[in-house]
C-alpha cells in the first residue's frame, strides 16, 4: 500500500460547479440525495483548476435572511464561495494531509477539502470524517505492529536469558567434565596397575596351594615335593609380596580418594544444577558457597587461592539453584579479573535483618565508568563471543527477586568486591521469580 493511494481512496468524484452557476441552482444541487454526505461543493475554472468551495452553511445563512433567495438567488456562486479552500494534492501522504487539514481547519467544520492531481487540476472532494476514519485505521494497524514487536522483543529477551543460563550451565558442565579427568586419570591407571601387580600374587597362591597338596599327600614322592617347593619359592621371589604391601596400600587409598573426588563432583553437579527453581525454606548459604566452589574450582585453581571466612548463618528461604547461579557467576568473574595469580576471599556473616555474603578478588578492578554499568544488560568488557553481558544483570534480578540487594565496589589495580544481602525471614515479602 503506497501513501499516494491512501488519499485516492478518500477521493469522491463530485462534479464541480462552474463559477457563474447561480446560488439558487447550487442550493438545489445540494439538496440532491447523492450529495447529502457533503458539506460543500467545489467550483473550478474552465481549465479544471479549483477556484473555491461553497458550503451548505453559507447558502443556509443567505436563505435564512428575509427574501434572501429572491435577492441573491440569481447571483453567481463565485460571489459567496470561500476562495481559499483546503486543497490537498493526491500524492500527499495520509499523515501529511492530516497535518495540513487539521492545521487549517476552522471550527465548526463547514467544508470538505478539494483533492487535486500533480498538475493542480481538480479530481474530487474528500471529507474530514473519511480522513479521520482512515487515520484511525492506520493507527490501529500501527498498534498491531507495535504489539507484535513487543511480543517478539519479550520472546527474544526470554531467549537471551535462557541462552545465558545455558551458556553458564555449559561452561560449568565442561569445567566439571574436565575436572573429572584428573581423578579418572589416576584411578584408571591405578586399577590397571593393581591388576598387573596382583597377577603374580595369584601365581604365588597357586604354587603354594600345589605345595600344600603335596605336603598333605602321603603318596607324594621326594622329587615332586622338591619341585613344588622350587616352584613356590620362585613364585614368591617373583611376586615379592612384602614389597607390594606398601604399593597396594597406597594404590588403594589413592584410588578410593579419587573415587570420592569423582563422587563429590557428581553430587556437586546435581546439587548445583537442580532444575527445579523452587524456593526452599531452610537454606544454609554456606552450603551454597561450598557447592558453587566445587563446580568453579577448575576455573579458579590456576588463577587464585580461595580463602573462605564463613560465619554462623541462620537458614533462610531462597531458591538455591538461583543463588548458586549468582555465586558461580561472581566466582568466575573474580577468577577472570585476575591476571597472574591472586586471591579470592569469600565471607559470610549475619546481622539482625539479613544474611550477608561478599566475594572479593585481588584482580584488575574497574574504573568508575565501568563499575556504573556492570549490572546493565548486554554490558560486557569481554571480547565478542566470550560473554553475553547478561551474567551480572541476571544475578541482579535474582537477588532483587529474593528481596535482597547486590552491590559492587572496585578500585583499578586492587580488585573488586561484591556484597549481597539477603533478608532474614521476618522481614521477607517473598517473590517467586521466573
Amino acid at each position, binding site marked *: 500500500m503506497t501513501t499516494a493511494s491512501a488519499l485516492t481512496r478518500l477521493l469522491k468524484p463530485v462534479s464541480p460547479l462552474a463559477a457563474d452557476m447561480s446560488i439558487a441552482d447550487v442550493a438545489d444541487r445540494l439538496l440532491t440525495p447523492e450529495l447529502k454526505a457533503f458539506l460543500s461543493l467545489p467550483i473550478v475554472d474552465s481549465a479544471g483548476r479549483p477556484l473555491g468551495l461553497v458550503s451548505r452553511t453559507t447558502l443556509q445563512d443567505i436563505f435564512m435572511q428575509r427574501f434572501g433567495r429572491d435577492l441573491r438567488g440569481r447571483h453567481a456562486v463565485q460571489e459567496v464561495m470561500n476562495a481559499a479552500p483546503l486543497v490537498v494534492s493526491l500524492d500527499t501522504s495520509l499523515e501529511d494531509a492530516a497535518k495540513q487539514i487539521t492545521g487549517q481547519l476552522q471550527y465548526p467544520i463547514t467544508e470538505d477539502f478539494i483533492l487535486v492531481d500533480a498538475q493542480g487540476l481538480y479530481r474530487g472532494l474528500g471529507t474530514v470524517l473519511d480522513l479521520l476514519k482512515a487515520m484511525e485505521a492506520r493507527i490501529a494497524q500501527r498498534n498491531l505492529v507495535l504489539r507484535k514487536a513487543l511480543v517478539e522483543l519479550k520472546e527474544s529477551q526470554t531467549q537471551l536469558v535462557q541462552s545465558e543460563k545455558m551458556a553458564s550451565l555449559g561452561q560449568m558442565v565442561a569445567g566439571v567434565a574436565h*575436572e573429572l579427568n584428573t581423578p579418572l586419570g589416576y584411578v584408571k591407571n591405578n586399577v590397571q596397575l593393581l591388576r598387573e601387580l596382583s597377577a603374580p600374587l595369584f601365581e604365588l597362591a597357586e604354587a603354594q596351594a600345589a605345595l600344600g597338596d603335596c605336603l598333605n599327600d602321603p603318596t607324594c614322592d621326594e622329587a615332586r615335593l622338591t619341585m613344588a617347593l622350587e616352584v613356590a619359592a620362585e613364585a614368591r621371589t617373583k611376586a615379592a609380596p612384602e614389597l607390594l604391601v606398601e604399593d597396594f596400600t597406597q594404590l588403594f587409598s589413592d584410588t578410593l580418594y579419587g573415587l570420592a573426588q569423582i563422587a563429590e563432583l557428581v553430587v556437586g553437579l546435581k546439587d548445583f544444577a537442580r532444575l527445579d527453581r523452587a524456593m526452599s525454606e531452610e537454606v544454609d548459604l554456606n552450603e551454597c558457597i561450598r557447592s558453587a566452589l566445587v563446580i568453579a574450582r577448575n576455573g579458579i585453581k590456576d588463577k587464585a587461592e580461595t580463602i573462605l571466612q564463613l560465619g554462623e548463618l541462620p537458614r533462610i528461604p531462597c531458591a538455591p539453584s538461583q543463588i548458586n547461579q549468582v555465586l558461580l557467576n561472581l566466582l568466575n568473574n573474580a577468577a577472570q579479573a585476575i591476571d597472574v595469580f591472586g586471591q579470592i576471599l569469600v565471607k559470610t556473616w549475619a546481622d539482625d535483618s539479613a544474611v550477608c555474603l561478599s566475594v572479593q578478588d585481588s584482580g584488575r578492578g574497574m574504573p568508575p565508568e565501568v563499575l556504573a554499568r556492570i549490572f546493565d544488560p548486554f554490558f560486557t568488557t569481554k571480547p565478542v563471543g566470550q560473554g553475553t553481558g547478561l551474567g551480572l544483570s541476571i544475578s541482579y534480578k535474582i537477588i532483587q527477586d529474593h528481596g535482597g540487594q547486590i552491590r559492587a565496589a572496585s578500585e583499578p589495580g586492587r580488585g573488586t568486591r561484591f556484597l549481597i544481602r539477603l533478608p532474614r525471614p521476618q522481614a521477607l515479602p517473598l517473590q517467586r521469580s521466573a
Partner: protein
Amino acid sequence: MSEQIRILFVDDEERILRSLALQFRREYEVLTESNPRRALERLKSENVQIIVSDQRMPQMSGAELLAQAREIAPYTLRILLTGYSDLDAAVEALNSGGIFRYLTKPWDQQEMAFTLRQAAQIAARQLQAPKVSAVIPQAALNVLLLDEDASTLDVVAEFCVAGGHRLLRAASLSDAVILLNSQPIDLLVSDLQVAGEDTAPLLKSLAQAHPRLLSLVVTPFCDTQALLKLINEAQIFRYLPKPIRRGLFDKGLLAAAEQAQLWRAQPAQVVTRLAQQPREERDREKVGSLLGMLGRLRERLIA
C-alpha cells in the same frame, strides 16, 4: 639402553605422580615434582631426557613450564598431559614449548607407555650422538608454500628474500607431492585447506617420510582435537592462527630455518621428529597412499 633415561613428571596432583611413577619406575628412572618451579630448578642441575607435565597448575601453566624447560634443557622431549581441551594452551605448548606429544587425561596405559618408549628411543639416540658445534652454518633452504592467501605469501616471500631461501609454491596437494618428489624441501608452510582439499594427511605423511622437513600450519580453523592430531601425528613445528599475526609468523619462520639448518649439520639420529601413526582408519589409509606417492623421496632418504 633405556636404563639411563630419566623422566620427570610434573603435576599438582600427587596421586597422578604416584600412579605414573609406579607405572614406569621399572623401565625408567622416574622423577616427580608437584611444584613446577621446583621442577625447573631440578632441570638446571639434573640431566632429564623427557618431561611430562600437567597443564593447569597453581604456580604456572604446563605450556609455560615446558617453554622454560626448553630454554634450560633444549634437548629434552616435552610432553603435555592434560585433562582440559584448551586450544590456547595447546597452541602455546606447541609454539613456545615445542612439545613432542599432547596427551589427554585419563590416559591410556598402553598408549602412554608406547609414547614414552618412542621418546626414550629418541633420547637414547641423542645421548649417543656426538655433540655438535654451536655454530650453525647459514645454509640456503627450500621453502614450499601451500596456501593461496596473499598475506601468507607476503610474509613468506619476504622471509625468503631476507634469508636467501628459495620459495616454491604449489596450488594443490598433487602439485605439492610433485614438488616434494623433485626438490629437497626443508620447510613447508601450509594451510589446512588448499583448493578444497584437506592437507592434514600430507602433513602426517611427511612427518613419517621426511622427518627433517619442518611444517608450519597457518589456518583460520580453531579446533583443539585437530591440533592435537597435528601435534601427535604430523609433528608440526608451528600452528599459526589466521588472520596472520606478522611478528609471530616471522619468529616461527626464523626458528624453523634455524632448526632446519641445525639438523642439516647433524647426523640423522639427532632428529627428534617422530610422529605417531594416525589413530583413525581413514586417516591411516590416506596417509598410506600419500606415502606411496612420496615413495621416491623416501627411497632417496634411505639411500
